[in-house]
């Protein structure tokens, strides 16, 4: 399986803090790679560095063989990277429709793509002309994900999509992400919810103190309770 995204020896400094301390990782084409770790391990910084929102101070980042570490965020997005930030960052003053029109950078909204999205996010059709600021947390998350997939993307970077959502919404969201995955998307997904991680992940990377401390199959980690406890401080069973 070819690697779509590859990070080699990536360091990121934010002010005087040395957050990423030599990250090496790869994300295989068509796979969902989970990025797990405790709070403050550097997961969000990794996504933001890939996206160019924070500049890597050292190291190489390549997307489909093309170096991107010194490119600007718009250039990286134009290479086909969709980003769903932890804060969702929907434009609350704009309607659902306007949010998606803006996300469809290359032209008018594609009706078939829109119907596909409405298939698993029906609330977006219902609230098409409502201001995004008036949506619930779960609906905002749907809009944020819809914005990332409204046009075909090579890679999706998704940061904690289930954070703060009610369990029923989390289950629904996992089904949606599975559907996106079935369509062949390549996803790097930061997640704290181990249930979601087990359901969605093909591969897993575990971070601690700005470095990757484990890489392997998600299924293998899910079945190895001692390893979970050693890497993450608690097990999937305990978490559930």
């Amino acid at each position, binding site marked *: 399986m070819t690697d779509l995204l590859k990070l080699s020896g990536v360091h990121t400094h934010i002010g005087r803090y040395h957050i990423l301390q030599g990250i090496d990782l790869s994300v295989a084409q068509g796979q969902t790679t989970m990025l797990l770790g405790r709070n403050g391990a550097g997961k969000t910084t990794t996504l933001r560095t890939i996206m160019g929102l924070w500049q890597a101070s050292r190291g190489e980042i390549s997307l489909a063989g093309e170096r991107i570490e010194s490119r600007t965020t718009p250039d990286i997005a134009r290479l086909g990277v969709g980003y769903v930030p932890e804060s969702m960052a929907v434009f609350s003053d704009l309607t659902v429709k306007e949010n998606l029109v803006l996300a469809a*950078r290359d032209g008018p909204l594609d009706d078939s793509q829109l119907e596909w999205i409405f298939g698993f996010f*029906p609330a977006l059709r219902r609230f098409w002309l409502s201001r995004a600021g008036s949506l619930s947390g779960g*609906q905002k998350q749907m809009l944020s994900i819809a914005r990332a997939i409204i046009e075909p993307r090579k890679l999706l970077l998704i940061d904690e999509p289930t954070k703060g959502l009610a369990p029923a919404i989390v289950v629904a969201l996992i089904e949606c992400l599975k559907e996106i995955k079935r369509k062949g998307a390549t996803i790097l997904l930061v997640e704290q919810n181990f249930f979601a991680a087990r359901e969605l992940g093909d591969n897993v990377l575990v971070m601690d103190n700005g470095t990757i401390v484990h890489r392997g199959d998600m299924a293998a980690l899910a079945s190895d309770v001692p390893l979970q406890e050693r890497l993450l401080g608690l097990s999937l069973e305990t978490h559930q």
Partner: protein
Amino acid sequence: MTELAATDPLPKPKRDIAPILLPVALAVVTIPLIGSPSTWLTLTAASLAMGMMIFIMASGLTLVFGLMDVLNFGHGAFIAVGAYVATLVLAPFAASVQADSLWVNLAVLAPAALLSMAVSGALGLIVERVLILPVYGQHLKQILMTTGGLIVAEQTLYALWGPQIIPTPLPTSLRGSFIIGDVAIAKYRVLATLIGLAVFIAIQLVLNRTKLGLLIRAGVENREMVEALGYRIRRLFLGVFMTGSALAGLGGVMWALYREQVHASMSDDLTVLIFIVVIIGGLGSIGGCFIGAILVAMVANYGGFLVPKLALVSNILLMVAILMWRPRGLYAVTSR
């Protein structure tokens, strides 16, 4: 799946009309205080005209504030430069300015205003590239750089035109008033109000009906996410900055004709008013800026008539009152 299959429609977002009612309430409250209906109408017309001119000058600044997070204390320079450029065009065509025909007057005024906007916009391009680009995200340095830029611009105007006040007489057909009963409404104030309304409608149409407008509104709210969607927001910044500068230039021409004079430091007092308007309107809000400009002008006109001694501080008091009511302005837009 309850949330995904939500069946209950969302409540329609409530339209926040309280700020819109403020100028109306202020106008109604002052009717018995002023006493004479004709005086009240004259003051109200003067307030609308003054408010529209301040709005034109402030609209660019509020977008620059909201979208770029730039504190441009040099915005007044674009106003003064716009006014001076207009004098360059109007002086050689004094005969056309003094002609009795409205069309002849407008044939000189329109190119003067357009050239002023072009020069102020071009100056905006230079200021953004030279003064502001190196200090994005650094407010203190922005204040120092733009204040320095304002001083340099003012002194350059002094050097080129001298310290004297340059008269800018109103074109003949715009002098005088429309008389309706015993109410006199100055013709130029009507024109200023119409131009201000046209600018407001044009900005609203661009912001609400075009993809460029969507980008500006989204950028005011979250610049980072706009970039993450693949848009080069720096170009948008530059376009908005130049447009804001050009509008300030237009405002400068209108203000010069309103006062019938131009001088290098003409923008000093206006800058204070403009900042008050931008702050009470809510940073980045065009609607808030529009209402704020009308409020500031009303307080200046009604206050100057009713309590002349309070005229100097009336707008500061207005700002304090509004910020106590809504600390982020009438229509808060940005999360900053």
